[in-house]
């Protein structure tokens, strides 16, 4: 790859310029860049009419400034460390045939473009913007519409994807790729993007040490965020709503999930958050509202679920029998059809200090902790788990009767599925 050459070249270039103007080498780098690096303007009435032509001329450190208009130039490859800046929303059109922008150099900035209609072939995953094996690529403030994949990073490092709007209006899943797709990368920052209508909003596979912050991912066909084999990442303060299947975090450890909102993910296989084969992670201060299942856990170990809100979900948490040593504490469970359910009889997870709005106990010593333990697992939830069509009888008299008697004399629900110290008041979150 030509990754190192442009850098040395640009240094040499800078030195020669410095000499020409009689300035010393230590002169401000910024000043030099601002005043000396060339800017090539593209657009009607500007020196260049073709973006490709401008990029051809440009050298590392230069800026290609593209003005408003539609540019259908097929596949544009950026193999130099340049800034590609759009003014007045120039449109880059892939004509449903090409990958629109391919970045194959470090230190590239792409901002201010509308990028649309990439090709659809599934063989080489054509994208709106694809970054190949590069570092320090910033993709900031673009609009990507109806591309197969929106932004695609592979073998990349230290890249920033920020404030982009990524939308696809396709309907067939095979014709729609992911919004932001990251593969085998490291130290990425995905910040403040809005993604909708794609297969997965944000897709992470083998991505490490990265952060996903303040994104909105909604109405995607499959997952708002799809996370696999990606250790030691954090996603913070994102908003995932109305995605076909919610958010999936799988085969990963060391994930931090803070302050996100998972809302209105409805459907037979829809989850606020699907956890599969996850361990040593921390779920803190999130909101799960109006999902079929707030959190669905399978093969999940040593996870702390703390101070989250579970509200208006069909199931607050579904904890499969394969989960161990998870600690669920200080959460608020409010207005869920079922707060918790499980398919097993052995429970190896602990509940403490949660607030359950169905709790009917009392607090005589006024320590804000209920004096009798709470069993969040209702008999009916166990029945439904075994035989889903029994949902038919939800809220019927017989179910109320069964639940009541089970609460008094537990026989069929696991003994140790219990919060010994339920909180009397909702935890202020």
């Amino acid at each position, binding site marked *: 790859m030509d990754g190192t050459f442009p850098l040395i070249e640009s240094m040499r270039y800078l030195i020669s310029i410095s000499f020409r103007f009689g300035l010393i080498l230590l002169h401000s780098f910024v000043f030099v860049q601002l005043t000396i690096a060339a800017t090539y303007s593209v657009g009607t009435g500007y020196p260049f009419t073709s973006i490709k032509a401008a990029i051809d001329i440009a050298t590392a450190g230069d800026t290609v400034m593209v003005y408003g208009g539609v540019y259908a130039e097929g596949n544009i490859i950026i193999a130099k460390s340049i800034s590609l800046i759009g003014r007045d929303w120039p449109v880059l059109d892939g004509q449903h045939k090409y990958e629109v922008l391919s970045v194959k150099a470090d230190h590239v900035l792409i901002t201010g473009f509308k990028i649309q209609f990439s090709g659809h072939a599934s063989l080489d995953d054509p994208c709106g913007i694809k970054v190949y094996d590069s570092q320090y690529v910033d993709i900031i403030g673009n609009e990507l519409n109806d591309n197969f994949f929106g932004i695609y990073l592979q073998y990349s490092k230290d890249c920033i994807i920020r404030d982009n709007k990524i939308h696809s209006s396709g309907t067939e899943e095979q014709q729609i790729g992911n919004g932001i797709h990251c593969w085998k990368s490291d130290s990425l920052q995905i910040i403040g993007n809005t993604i909708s209508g794609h297969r997965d909003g944000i897709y992470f596979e083998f991505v490490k040490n990265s952060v996903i912050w303040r994104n909105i991912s909604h109405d995607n066909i499959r997952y708002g965020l799809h996370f696999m084999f990606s250790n030691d990442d954090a996603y913070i303060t994102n908003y995932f709503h109305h995605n076909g299947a919610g958010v999936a975090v799988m085969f990963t450890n060391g994930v931090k999930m803070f302050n996100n909102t998972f809302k209105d993910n*409805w*459907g*037979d296989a*829809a989850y606020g958050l699907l956890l599969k084969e996850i361990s040593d992670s921390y779920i803190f201060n999130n909101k799960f509202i*109006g*999902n*079929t299942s707030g959190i669905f856990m399978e093969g999940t170990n040593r996870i702390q679920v703390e101070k989250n809100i579970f509200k*208006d*979900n*069909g*199931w607050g948490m579904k904890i499969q029998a394969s989960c161990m040593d998870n600690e669920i504490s200080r959460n608020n469970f409010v*207005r869920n*059809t*079922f707060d918790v359910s499980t398919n097993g009889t052995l429970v190896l997870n602990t509940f403490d200090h949660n607030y359950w709005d169905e709790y009917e106990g009392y607090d005589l010593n006024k320590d804000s902790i209920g004096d009798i333990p709470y069993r969040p697992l209702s008999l009916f939830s166990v*029945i*439904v788990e*075994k*035989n*889903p*069509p*029994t*949902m*038919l*009888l*939800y*809220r*019927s*008299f*017989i*179910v*109320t*009767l069964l639940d009541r008697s089970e609460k008094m004399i537990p026989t069929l629900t696991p003994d140790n599925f219990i919060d010994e110290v339920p909180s009397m008041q909702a935890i202020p979150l």
Partner: protein
Amino acid sequence: MFNKIQKFILFDILKNRIVIAYTLLLAVLAWSVFSLEDDSNKGVLTLLNIVLLTTPLVSIIFTTIYLYNSAEFIELLLSQPVRRSKIWAGLFLGLFFSLGLSFMIGAGIPILLFVAGRTAFILLVMGILITAIFVSLGFLCTILARDKARGIGIAILLWLYFSLLFDGLVLFLLFQFADYPIEKVMVVVSALNPIDLARIFIILQLDVSAMLGYTGAIFKDFFGTGLGAVLGFLLLCLWAVIPYLISRRLFIRKDL
């Protein structure tokens, strides 16, 4: 002519102590449910349970007892120049209107005040339909048994069957046939119980997320669409009409 009978019966029943108590009971329950629950949807669910228990019970038992107690009065009406079917219709409408009015006053007013438009509407329609259905079943009980104690016994059994035993049977069947795809069959089965039908109708308005399991999806596909809703509504209407028509047929031929 029959609307005159109905009018007088209505006045009579509205002053009846049991009916007044029923109205007050509904009012107390509804007001307390809505003022204790800060969330109206949860209030609706709590009220749903109450309504689906008490309304059928009161409707069927009160109707049955009222008809038995009116035996001599019905005889007097029969000696008047009126068609039998009109007497029966007058009694039915009188009972249905008065119990329906009780429901509207007791539960309807708080529902309208606390619940959002569409849900409130469905809840009221279901309450009224359930009232009509169990008044109608009360007519059937009365005509099937000459003896008062036996008639009331049948009424209580019918109520027990529709609100508890039927669902127990459904639960049993669901587990017996757990290995077969019987969800669609269960949609049909549920139509055999008006209380279940009404319950599902109202729940589809509320806890959509919970119902969206596979079973829920089937129900939503069926009852959530315009055609299904109309079909369900018509089924409930049939439940109100058919027992009454059978009882009317028997009443016309009955010796008193």
